[in-house]
């Protein structure tokens, strides 16, 4: 399964989002009212989820902030790590 699709499905199940995968745009902001509206608890869960399912461990909060912008930014980081 492509990384972006897998990310969306994991987000829906693990963050208990009441939406379908195709409702999450690749570039939709994850946080804030203009986007999906995730909060800081979701961010923590995303960090754990990405480490658990993709083996990608965030180095620090700054990196997490950069990566946890959208499905695209997460997928790029995860795929880059997989290719390395």
């Amino acid at each position, binding site marked *: 399964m492509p990384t972006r699709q897998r990310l969306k499905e994991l987000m829906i199940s693990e963050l208990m989002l009441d939406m379908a995968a195709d409702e999450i745009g690749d570039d939709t902001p994850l946080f804030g009212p203009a986007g999906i509206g995730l909060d800081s608890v*979701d961010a923590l*869960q995303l960090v754990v989820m990405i480490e*658990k399912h993709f083996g990608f461990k965030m180095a620090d909060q700054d990196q997490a902030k950069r990566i946890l912008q959208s499905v695209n930014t997460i997928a790029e980081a995860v795929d880059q790590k997989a290719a390395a």
Partner: protein
Amino acid sequence: MRALDGLAFDGQMELHPALNIFRAAILVALAHAKRVIQQTLAHPELLPSSFSFCTNFSDEPETCRVFLGVRERRERAQELAGRFPERAALITLEITSPEAWKTALAEIEAQAGPLGVLINNAGFHEDALLANMAQDQWSRVLDANLNAVFHGCQAVLPGMMRERKGRIVNISSLSAISSPAGQTNYSAAKAGVIGLTQSLAKESARMGITVNAVLPGYIEGGLPTDWTPEHLKALKMQLPMRRFAKPAEIAAAVFFLASPDASYITGSSLKIDGGIL
């Protein structure tokens, strides 16, 4: 039937099947403990007789293991764990040390896999009027009763978050809400535990982790040893039930909150005081 803190074993030393959902370990922080486990040891006549936790795990290869985190009074905890050699073990734990928690958790996970339940049971009080309270008295009580709960929760959360399930039961006290004179330190610490519990419950609710607090009142075997029989008698007369709690009555609530049956209860503070407040 025997009770091991919040956990009950039947004659075959089996755990309640409800707890089998947690594959491995239950950590009971016991350093300084003056509560259920020691009371159970001190009063074997009070072991529960009305619970039915009898089951077998013939179809369930995985079973719970219980780890008692102990700093001192090891002999009593060892005596208890020794009754259940397949299920219970001691683990060295200085609850006020984050490093000690990490070490203990690593050892537990190596022996038994991911931790399912944490019961923050440790606690002690060192009473004095605030006007006379030494800084050390304040700090020691806050460290053991509140900071240790923070350290324990912080230590177990990453594993519970990975597993997306977990139960944390924090033993607070009726003193958190009754705030008797002479317990500014203990009351503040135990009230802090309630606040921590409620806040952490919100942070972890979506992760399949519940966090609850239990507020015991007077418990048989857990009262100051220098209280005279006359004092105890007079105290009982003031209680709505005119008796103290049996340790098993506290353990039953802890056990319930640790079980999957309590899956929609989080952030709760359950007082078990026989109607005092």
